[in-house]
């Protein structure tokens, strides 16, 4: 199990994956918006998306778990 965390504070702009998806390393899981930039959250390794812990427009903190891969 791998937790994918927010690397900085921001809001969830677009979620581009869903539970059950098979993803490869570096695939984009969601896009955060912070400081006028779109910041891609990518899979640190290949795996299956087990859980998405946020929804679009949510404000997230640095280090908050966004996605759980299995």
């Amino acid at each position, binding site marked *: 199990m791998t937790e994918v965390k927010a*690397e*900085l*504070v921001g809001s969830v702009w677009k979620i581009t994956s869903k539970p059950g998806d098979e993803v490869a390393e570096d695939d984009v899981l969601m896009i955060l918006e*912070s*400081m*006028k*930039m*779109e*910041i891609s959250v990518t899979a640190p390794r290949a795996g299956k998306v087990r859980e998405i812990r946020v929804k679009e427009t949510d404000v997230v*903190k640095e280090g908050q778990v966004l996605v759980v891969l299995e």
Partner: protein
Amino acid sequence: MSEDYSAKISELKSRREQNLGMGGKEKIAKQHERGKLTVRERIDLLFDKDTFVEFGLLASQQAVRGGEPDTDGTPADGVVTGHGEVEGREVWVIAYDFTVMAGSMGAVGEQFKAARVRELALRYRRPIVWLLDSAGARIQEAAGSTFAGTGYLFYDQVVMSGVIPQVAAMLGPCSAGTAYIPGLADFVPMVKETSSMSLGGARLVKAATGEDVTDHDMGGSQVHCYESGVGDNEVEDDRGCIAMVRRFLSYLPSSNTDEPPFRATDDSGDRDVDGLEKIVPTNPRAAYDVKRVIKAVFDRDSWFEIKPAWAKNIVVGFARAGGHAVGVVANQPMQKGGILDSDSADKAARFIRMCDAFNVPLVYLMDVPGFIVGSQVEKEGIIRHGAKMLYATSEATVPKVTVIMRKAYGAGYYVMCGKGYQPDLIVAWPLAEISVMGPEGAVNIIFNKQIEASANPKETRGQLIETIRSQINPYLAAGWAMIDDVIDPAETRRVIIRGIEQARNKKVERPWRKHGNIPV
């Protein structure tokens, strides 16, 4: 030759051979088993062929401070010292020999041999390279209060800082106080798996705090090149590490009174830079890899990145522009959107100061949404860290060229060498957005009352955002002559080269002071 005389010569030869043999066949085999080269193999790789001149080959451990010398002999006292040439220029070396008492730093090796190299390198204004593979202080000689007479090496390193380049190549362990050698050096490549550095080695840590950890887990390249930022570049093996040391030195002068070496190139200084429109999106929110821009703009194959795996939201390293060595500072939109934070400001400040100390011109490639804000970063002291970069950019008196590619927001614009920071040339691409903040943020501050009073606040806000947005374009800054020009991105290469060449005779007079007080 008399028999007497030849006996004397053969004694000399055998003493030399003995010490060239390092710690003996067994220890050498063990060194190789660990995936490491011997100290003499490393020195052969470091210097141009047959240029190494050794000092202190015949040294060995002496009976000092009540200790008995090692009965097996301690060739060169565990440290090989001298000078040789790197691409035809003199460089001095202090190289620890792990096959002799684990490369531990003994009284002879430290107080006489290494000290002599530091003294002579400084006297002749030549770079020093440490090849580190050492268990640290030789406790047999150092335990006890004669410790009071040690520590000169770091003092010397500080005196040499900014005068001659200092490289600490990590090729094995480097623990205890000796970890300050890399701590003070200008460049610290680390070999994966075999090298480590920590203020206290594993055994000391266990005794002092009870923590059970290996030297590698505590201070390997996976820690220092990725998390702490103490190491610069991780390399696969000794060979790669030493090749990287040679490459690093190729961008720097021998001392702060020289210019960096010029390297002629067949890559035309006048050529258009093709393909930038395919790399940099016009949508200012979209990310891209700024290293592709760097590789396209500077001399072919000249890019040498430093600290590539730490604080990746800023990219720093050396390159050449029309043959001139330059230091590149570039925001990296692909990492954290290119936003500046504490670590990235530290990384840039340290690099900028190194370039300034050694007369390497700076090129800033700007695309910065600003500094990260919020309660989390205030706790880590973002103001103090950001101020280092502000300080370093202001302090730098080498030629400075600024290219505003896209975003130039807030204090990000300042630290990336905005107009106020005395760039010798500052230009913008047509995509440039220069402003204290983005329209979405500004509108809430400037027109707060107007939006609240509106019958349709959302629509009013939208209109006002557009009003502000229309004020954010490079022609406004160029119209005020606050920037020197707006350029076609394809012109970037020749504009940078002209900027560097234009400023070659730069002299900046500052008020006398002992030294400034950089926030640390």
